[in-house]
């Protein structure tokens, strides 16, 4: 079971609904063959950094250092590529699946 952590920016004034994204991620975890665990637990395969805007306050080196891979949502942007909020959940799912599949192959 892949260990996935979720780290939020702080949600001061998010442009996208971070709580909904987090809930969707938790909902699809089993389907992805993953367990959502606290970042502090260590041995994390993937950290999904959920930031509400391009400032991306959660995008910190100490956060990324705690996982083998990371995915960054920064407002309407996923890993540097613009994505509308309607497509964000699906795109996030695809990204996570890609990373998890890649982890299986290594």
């Amino acid at each position, binding site marked *: 079971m892949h260990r996935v952590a979720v780290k*939020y920016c*702080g*949600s001061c004034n998010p442009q996208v609904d971070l709580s909904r994204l987090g809930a969707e991620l938790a909902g699809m975890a089993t389907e992805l063959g993953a367990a959502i665990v606290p970042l502090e637990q260590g041995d994390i395969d993937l950290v999904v950094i959920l930031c509400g805007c391009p400032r991306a306050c959660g995008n910190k080196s100490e956060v990324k250092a705690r996982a083998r891979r990371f995915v960054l949502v920064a407002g309407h942007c996923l890993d540097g590529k613009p994505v509308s909020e309607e497509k964000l959940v699906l795109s996030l799912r695809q990204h996570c699946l890609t990373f998890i599949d890649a982890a299986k192959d290594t």
Partner: protein
Amino acid sequence: MKTGNQYRESLRKLNPQVYLMGEKIASVVDHPAFVPHINAAALTYDMAWAPEFEALLTTKSHLTGEKINRYTHIHQSHDDLIAKVKMLRALGQQVGSCFQRCVGHDGMNAVYSVTYDIDQKKGTQYHKRFLDFLKRVQKDDLMISGAMTDPKGDRSLSPSKQKDPDSYVHVIEKRKDGIVVNGAKAHITGGINSHGHLVMPTIGMKAEDADYAVCFYVPVDAPGVIHVFGRQTNDDRKCSCTMDQGNPEYGIVGGEALVVLEKVFVPWEHVFMCGEYEFAGDLVERFATAHRQNYGGCKTGVSDALVGATLLLAESQGSEKAAHVREKLVEMVHLGETLYACSIACSCQGYAMPAGNFMADPLLANVTKLNVTRNVYEISRLAHDIAGGVLATTPSEADLRSPCVGKYVSKYLKGVDTVPAETRIKLVRLLEGMTCGTALVEALHGAGSPQAQRIMIGRQANLERKKRLAQKLAKIGDQPKLVC
């Protein structure tokens, strides 16, 4: 860290003397007049446990390395100053009102640096005492009120010249084990639902005012501490209805009290200044800087919700597409974000004090608050403009529910067909609570009145340098050479 319910339970264990409408209150936590304010303060605890807000509401103590609520933290960097502002915006959005815990937080940051300075100059032990106190605040996640404003009596006279010596809090006796104080502190936000009060002087002082240069912590239920809760606009609604409150969960304003100190004993371990009058002004200015820094965070967060309420109301009335309505909404956002920009700017321009803690830039913090005193009124005026006269005339919740006239209220208070009258009424009441009355006065006078900000801006303006800049451009007098 506590949760919101643990905070409520911790208040239940206390026995403060609180008066409201002439009656002594048996249980602060359960009285409907206080529940919204306690809910607002409780959210500063609960949001620390929510993953979405954890990064803003929590941090690591520089004293112990433990995870703490940010409200018990002493800022250690620019990032901390910025995080505070963002935290306040997040809270303002969720609460739509004042959540009270900031005053004490800012007081602790100011006292942290001033006690260090006093010790450096005078060889006293205030800073160590304060650190011991702060460690307990962090460990027990206490809510501390910031009690600065004295009643002041005759404003033209200094504290020691007042006809009534209690116009300012002062030391009336010094003992081996502590001091005894008399006086009162006014407008104390969250006073009745805090664990204790951090009492600070309110103005700079001279040698003759030494007995008034006093700073200390006193538990909310210490003998001799008496709270008289202040009235607010429409406060009866908290005890008589729900929908007509507008924001029934969190209220319309922080909830302020007159805190009387009637021969209150304070042990030395909780005394952080006693007679060092030359430092009173520094304490006031640093507290004021820290607190004025905030308002572009909290008030912008509240404005975010207000803009949402105004737009929803316009939609319920079918007016949201009108060009002037869109323009006014944009202006409301512009004004709110201007305040946020000010708070972020003064945080980015902050710097370390000799004690090691970080403070916002005083000039920009005062600019922040002075802009708040104007912009919040203008944001409210625009909301009123869009809402229409219904803001001042809507029938009561009781009439909406009345078997006799409810059908008329439902019929004639409806705007567009798809939005029930009840929804429109809820929005009207939310807008009413957020923009009419006490909330506006708090935006004007909270953290100091506009003139106080102008005085600080005047002091920091560096007008002499500005004159030299103009002289150089107009080639008046000696021209300094630029080194190329």
